[in-house]
């Protein structure tokens, strides 16, 4: 499992801030299709490679293509399988990272939005994963 101190780990807050700015990053969701259908990170790509990655298949991500001109952040449920995906992607030359804590950490990420109200300043606090 990746931790924020791991150089291959990508912190949830960093990803959230990057996506909110429309930053150049590709998010690759490697969870099983049934899990992705429940919820996912908006704009993320998907490849159901979970079983292959867990089985240690070196060809788990051999097919398909990802943009080469920006970092790739692999995402799974808890941040373990995405670490394997990150290693394979790095071997293919991608600037790859693993989302630390996976979708569980993403569901707990908070952000704020300032709303303009007449005569008052309203701060809306949102959980990123819940919208």
């Amino acid at each position, binding site marked *: 499992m990746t931790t924020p101190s791991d150089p291959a780990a990508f912190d949830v807050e960093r990803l959230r801030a990057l996506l909110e700015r429309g930053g150049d990053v*590709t998010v690759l969701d490697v969870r099983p299709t049934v899990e992705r259908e429940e919820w996912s990170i908006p704009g993320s*790509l*998907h*490849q*159901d*490679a979970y079983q*292959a990655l867990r089985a240690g*298949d070196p*060809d*788990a*991500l*051999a*097919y*398909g*293509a*990802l*943009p*080469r001109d920006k970092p790739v952040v692999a995402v799974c449920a808890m941040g373990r399988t995405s670490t394997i995906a990150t290693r394979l992607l790095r071997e293919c030359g991608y600037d790859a990272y693993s989302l630390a804590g996976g979708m569980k950490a993403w569901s707990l990420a908070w952000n704020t939005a300032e709303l303009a109200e007449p005569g008052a300043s309203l701060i809306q606090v949102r959980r990123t994963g819940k919208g």
Partner: protein
Amino acid sequence: MSVASVSSNAPGSADSRPTPPPRVTRLAIIASKGTLDWAYPPLMLATQAAKKGWEVGGFFTFYGLNIIHRRRGRRLRVTPLANPALPMPVPSLLAALPGMTAMATSMLKRKFRGRRVPTIDELLEQAIASGVKLYPCGMTIDVFGYGTEDFIPGVQPRHGSSDFLDFAKDAEVTLFV
């Protein structure tokens, strides 16, 4: 004067002109078939070329439009009927029975998944994100009565065959599937 101090890039010299960027290899694919088995070759080739950094354009014409169709693309099938190459574990005579197309489609999807091949949806998403241009054929759109809203997000505007020929003219690799 040392040899190293002689600059070949001195202003006014012939070598001072900016070097043009190296030309990227171009792949032009025409996808004309709309069954599950024949949806894979153009998309696999397109994504592998994109992975190499090639410029890729795919022209989806006739039944190939099904691949990028918002609804039809999610229902691509393969039939064992008159398709002797499909490795079905039943005699050819039984291929015409109801349910055999669904069985063949399910079997093929399992085989692809077993070899770590992404689904058609996954390949399309990755292709578009990787800069592959997917052009729907304008004439076929008119013939089948489709609208621009019928295609998946990220597909290019309708394209004429003449326009695609202009793109393919400068391609190092041209393929018809």
